C-alpha cells in the first residue's frame, strides 16, 4: 500500500495532465474548480485517469455525488443544502472535510469541497479497502 505522499504526488501528476496546470499550482488545499479551473467534463477526465493510474474502479457518483449537484429538492432548498442534504453528503463523501461547508451550506460553494487533499484521502480509502 503506497504512502500518503506517494498517493498525493500521483494525484498531483494526474491533475496536472487533466487540467493542464503546473506542479506549482497544485497545493493540498487547492480547489479543483476555483483554483485549478476544472470544468464538469474535466471531472470525467479525472475519474478516467484516477481509475487507470491507481487500478481502481470509481462507481458513478462515489467521488462526485450527483444527487446533490442536480439540485434535488430534498437536498437543496433556495440554493442552500438542507440538513437531509448534509447527511447525504456526510454519508456519500466520508473522505471530505465538511466542517467549513456545514457552517454555511451554500450550494454555489460546494465546489470548494473538492480539493487535491480530498482526492488524495479518497484514493487512500479506496486502496485501503482492496486486499491487493
Amino acid at each position, binding site marked *: 500500500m503506497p504512502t500518503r505522499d506517494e498517493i498525493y504526488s500521483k494525484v498531483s501528476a494526474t491533475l496536472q*495532465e487533466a487540467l493542464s496546470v503546473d506542479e506549482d499550482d497544485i497545493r493540498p488545499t487547492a480547489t479543483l474548480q476555483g483554483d485549478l479551473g476544472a470544468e*464538469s*467534463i474535466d471531472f*470525467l*477526465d479525472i*475519474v*478516467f485517469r484516477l*481509475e487507470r493510474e491507481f487500478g481502481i474502479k470509481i462507481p*458513478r457518483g462515489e467521488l462526485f455525488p450527483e444527487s446533490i449537484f*442536480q439540485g434535488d429538492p430534498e437536498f437543496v432548498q433556495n440554493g442552500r443544502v438542507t440538513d437531509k442534504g448534509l447527511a447525504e453528503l456526510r454519508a456519500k463523501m466520508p473522505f471530505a472535510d465538511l466542517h467549513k461547508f456545514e457552517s454555511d451550506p451554500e450550494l454555489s460553494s460546494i465546489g470548494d469541497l473538492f480539493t487535491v487533499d480530498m482526492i488524495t484521502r479518497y484514493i487512500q480509502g479506496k486502496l485501503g479497502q482492496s486486499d491487493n
Partner: protein
Amino acid sequence: MRWIWLDRFVDFQRGRSARAVKNLSLAEDHFTEHFPGYPVMPAPLMLEGLAQTGGILVGEVNDFREKVVLAKIPMARFTREVLAGEQLIYDVEILHMRPEGASVRGRVLVGEEVVAEAEIFFAHLDQARSQQLFGDHNFVFSGELKKMLGLAQLQGARNQGSGVRDQESGVNKNAGASSLTPDS
C-alpha cells in the same frame, strides 16, 4: 451543408475499434481557400473525422440511445500536412466507457504512416447533464451518421453473399453483430 467527414467504414469491432476512410478531393469546398494552389486538409476537420468515427463506435454500444457529443480533446498532434488526392484512414479505439461518457484514441493514417493522432472525450448528454432537457429525440444519430454504419453492415453482408439486410433504418438490428463480416 452535409457535415459528414467520413466516406465509408472499412472495419467495425463493436465496443472496441473502428476504421473509416476519408478521401480528400480537390472538389471539396474547404480546399478553395485553404489554400489557393496548395490544398491542405484543415486539422480541425481531421479531428472531426476522428470524432465522428469514434462517436459512432461509442454510440453503437448502446444502440444509439445515448446522445454522444464531443466534449474534450486532451491531446492532438499533427505530424505533417495532408493534401487533396490523399486517402486518410481514421483508426479509432475505445479506451474507456462509462455511463456518463467515453474516451477514445484516434490515429489518422495515410497508408501505414501516422499523420495525426488525438485523444477524444465524449459525453453522454442525458447522463452527464440530466437537469437540462434535451428531449427524447436523438438529434446526434438521427440521420447520416447512423446510416453510415448501416451501409457498412450492408456491404459486409453483400460480401458474405447473405442477402439484403434491413434497408429502412440502415442499422443492423442484430444485437450480436460485431464486425462487417457477420459470423453466421
